[in-house]
């Protein structure tokens, strides 16, 4: 059993080895891991609750008591950013998760069966794609109403078409490989062929797109919150924090600076990681 | 070796390595090879033997990184190719030494008409105008059996065999002294292969080009080559005139190759196979690289890398064991 584990690690290990060579990607990976830890242990890391107001300490620049300063309600910005990481990660991964599952399913069915089904599904995707993704997200969020959950749905739905496309093209290229014919020749059902043979071999482009997709989802969420859709106060979503600090940007720039930096570093890290993964997974595909 | 003859190509002790993530690939190890003027040499071996690497080394096209010519001399027409600068090398490529690659589908540029591709070769090496180059290109097309009207057609409009003819036309456009053909007919159907081989034989006679034909097909070698060199895991193991090698193959690997081919004339129940596989080029066996699979292996074989022994005039074998056996017999 352990030998089998070692073998499965063999594949994964090679990818990690290639990834390690890419410094930027490793930097990205480190940041993402840090982000996860921050989100998980927010209760231990953040010195204050994110909603607790200390009105007498409002508008304080970074000091020893409040590491990144306080906002107009005297809330500790550092704590809010720490708790905000939870929200960003939730939005990112759940929205992308939704898009991958639904989009992936549509793309797999489309690519595998071709013909009318393919046409139908892809034209529906085209309709969605003709609307700029962020506008689509805005429209859905606006119609669903405020709230974190609706935000995730909005971002998720607007991302479905790109995953459908990616999975479809991966399925098309693998569908004609001889090992798929071999599966047919031994009597495999279509379902088994898609789930066991085609999809696992299409993971690479999905992983790359998903990594970059999480970045986009976080950015979109921040954007939506910025214009007032999605998150409701006092949730410490980074985009909402940006929006909240907008009015005070002249005198108290740190209120927008730190959430902005948090967004920027996170997106950058995810992009580096996604690029690195693409390169690390690619040579394996070429084999 | 033998007395210093006037060779066109003299490869001395060539060693080429590739540095990869999984280790150093010893592609070519201490290779020695000579080719006379007007001769055609069949360079035979299986995948991974190092034949293409040798060809690329002659053309000075080893990708660096990760490849490197570590050692050895490649003397072509009196010059050591390893010591030339980039400008001089470019002058030789296409002009004096031309190469044909295996896959006719990918060796032609799909967006340029074939006539122009031939003309490009001519313009690069000869001091002529565009028109003159194109005229010569059309002549070359006719020479390889393609109608001149097709000079403006694109590669995808030709079949595999015809594309290979175009590739041959490009290679011969500047009348090179040496033509290296890397498995030129492997990707072709057998009747088309016959056509292309006939063409190559005629052109060989007409131009008196020396040729190195890389192939794994012993039948093709018998048809078109004067001499044969058998390559295994980075070095030549046997070398002789075609007639000599085919009537009296000595090296156990050479014999293994011949035994692996089903005989068209006789019925054989079982083919006499060589056990095992070609060794991992990052981890070659000590001494003679063939010893783990060799039916004649002796203890010394794993200790010392065998030298090429001239067992009879012009017939070289890198195997002391079979040479002793041969001498005892004769």
């Amino acid at each position, binding site marked *: 059993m352990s*030998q*089998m584990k070692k*073998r499965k690690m063999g*594949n994964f290990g090679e990818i990690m080895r290639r990834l390690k060579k890419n410094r930027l990607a490793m930097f990205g990976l480190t940041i993402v891991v840090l982000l996860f830890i921050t989100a998980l242990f927010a209760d231990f890391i953040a010195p204050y609750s994110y909603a607790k107001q200390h009105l007498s300490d409002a508008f304080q620049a970074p000091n020893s008591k409040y590491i990144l300063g306080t906002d107009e309600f005297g809330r500790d910005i550092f704590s809010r950013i720490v708790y905000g990481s939870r929200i960003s990660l939730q939005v990112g991964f759940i929205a992308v998760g939704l898009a991958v599952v639904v989009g992936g399913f549509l793309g797999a069915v489309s690519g595998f069966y071709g013909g009318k089904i393919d046409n139908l599904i892809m034209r529906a995707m085209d309709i969605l794609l003709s609307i700029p993704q962020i506008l689509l997200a805005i429209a859905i969020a606006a119609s669903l109403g405020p709230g974190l959950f609706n935000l995730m749905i909005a971002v998720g739905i607007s991302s479905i078409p790109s995953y459908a496309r990616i999975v479809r093209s991966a399925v098309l290229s693998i569908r004609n*490989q*001889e*090992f798929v*014919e*071999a*599966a047919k*020749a*031994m*009597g495999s*059902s279509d379902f*088994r062929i898609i789930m*066991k*043979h085609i999809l*696992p*071999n299409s993971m690479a482009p999905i992983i790359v797109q998903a990594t970059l997709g999480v970045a986009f989802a976080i950015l979109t969420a921040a954007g939506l919150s910025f214009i007032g859709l999605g998150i409701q106060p006092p949730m410490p979503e980074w985009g909402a924090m940006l929006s909240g600090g907008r009015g005070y940007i002249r005198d108290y720039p740190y209120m927008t600076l730190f959430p902005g930096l948090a967004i920027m570093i996170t997106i950058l890290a995810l992009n580096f990681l996604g690029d690195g993964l693409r390169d690390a997974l690619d040579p394996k595909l070429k*084999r | 070796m033998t007395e210093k003859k006037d060779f066109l190509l003299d490869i001395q002790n060539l060693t080429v390595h590739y540095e990869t993530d999984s280790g150093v690939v010893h592609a070519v190890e201490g290779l020695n090879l000579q080719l006379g003027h007007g001769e055609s040499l069949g360079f035979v071996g*299986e*995948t991974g033997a190092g034949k293409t690497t040798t060809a690329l080394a002659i053309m000075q096209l080893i990708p660096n990184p990760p490849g490197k010519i570590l050692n050895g001399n490649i003397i072509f027409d009196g010059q050591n190719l390893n010591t030339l600068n980039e400008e001089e090398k470019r002058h030789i490529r296409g002009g004096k030494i031309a190469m044909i690659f295996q896959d006719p589908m990918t060796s032609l540029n799909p967006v340029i008409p074939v006539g122009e591709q031939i003309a490009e070769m001519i313009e690069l090496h000869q001091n002529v105008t565009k028109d003159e180059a194109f005229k010569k290109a059309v002549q070359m097309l006719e020479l390889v059996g393609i109608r001149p009207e097709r000079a403006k057609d694109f590669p995808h409009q030709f*079949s595999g*065999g*015809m594309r290979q003819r175009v590739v041959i036309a490009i290679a011969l456009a500047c009348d090179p002294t040496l033509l290296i053909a890397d498995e030129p007919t492997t990707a072709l*159907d*057998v*009747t*088309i*292969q*016959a*056509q292309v*081989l006939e063409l190559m034989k005629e052109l060989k006679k007409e131009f008196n080009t020396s040729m190195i034909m890389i192939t*794994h*097909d*012993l*039948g*093709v*070698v*018998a*048809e078109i080559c004067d001499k044969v060199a058998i390559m295994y895991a980075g070095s030549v193991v046997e070398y002789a005139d*075609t007639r000599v090698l*085919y009537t009296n193959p000595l090296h156990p690997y050479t014999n*293994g*190759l*011949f*035994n*692996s*081919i*089903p*005989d*068209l004339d006789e019925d*054989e129940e*079982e*083919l*006499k*196979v*060589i056990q095992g*596989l*070609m060794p991992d080029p990052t981890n070659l066996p000590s001494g003679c690289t063939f010893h783990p699979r060799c039916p004649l292996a002796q203890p010394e074989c794993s200790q010392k890398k065998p030298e090429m022994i001239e067992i009879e005039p012009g017939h070289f074998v890198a195997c002391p064991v079979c040479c002793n056996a041969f001498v005892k017999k004769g």
Partner: protein
Amino acid sequence: MNGSREKLIEVNHLKKYFPTKKGMLHAVDDVSFFVYEGETLGLVGESGCGKSTLGRVMIRLLDATDGEVIYRGENILKYNKRQMKDLRKDVQIVFQDPYSSLNPRLSVSELIAEPLIVNNVYNGSKAERDARIRTLMDTVGLAQRLVHAYPHELDGGRRQRIGIARSLALDPDFIVLDEPVSALDVCIQAQILNLLNTLKKEKGFTYIFIAHNLSVVKHVSDRIAVMYLGKIVELSDYRTVFADPLHPYTQALLSAIPIPKVDQQRDRIILEGDVPSPIEPPEGCRFAGRCRYRKDICSQKTPELREIEKGHFIACHFARNLSM
């Protein structure tokens, strides 16, 4: 070569056409023949002749356009899904490309286990299944230590052995071998050919061996069918095809083979031109355009495949009367 042998498969007027933008592609064009139980029928031809398509249509990996394939007395082209699933146990295929015919994400044992799992063999017992996998690996000469290896770690020869083991898992009677050694080096090729031969002797398989390398086909086949542009042009036992080829294409094909001997270089029949397109082929003999013996009737009437002497079939208007 007696008539008391059982016919395992009879193919009648089988057609497979593909619609393309330029017209109908006649990949397999009205092919009829039979395969005896326990024999190896070699199917040779150059690219585009339809041999691979024929192999796949025969086992319904592709659906036929028309015709019948009678296996053990029943037309399998009319089988429903359940019957087909049953048939899959008896009828298997080994593919040409050892690189693309194995799922790169599955280990050797998982690959060989697939047919067993899909067909619910040893359903309860993983131990029995594992034992069977190990036996199969032994049978095809794969070392036991490779049981958890992945295809990309192995060379072409070993991968092809996996493919063969996989095809044996369900104990089939009939195996289509689609160019099983074409992608392999000569020495490995010989090893695999010996293996296929041994297996056949031990288990009594019926093989259809598709290849373009004539010396390999001669080595393995009892009878050989030569295909050109979707039709069978000659069919006979292997000795006759090589000693007495009657069809001009067979003659040209045989003379084109480069022989690895120095004293047997002979005058070749060099065919002119290229293989014509299988899309909307013209009436008449498909080979007429390149045949040195062609007469007027050749481009007007398509010759039938007829038994010209015992066991020797040929599709040519002038079978024994070729003249320039």
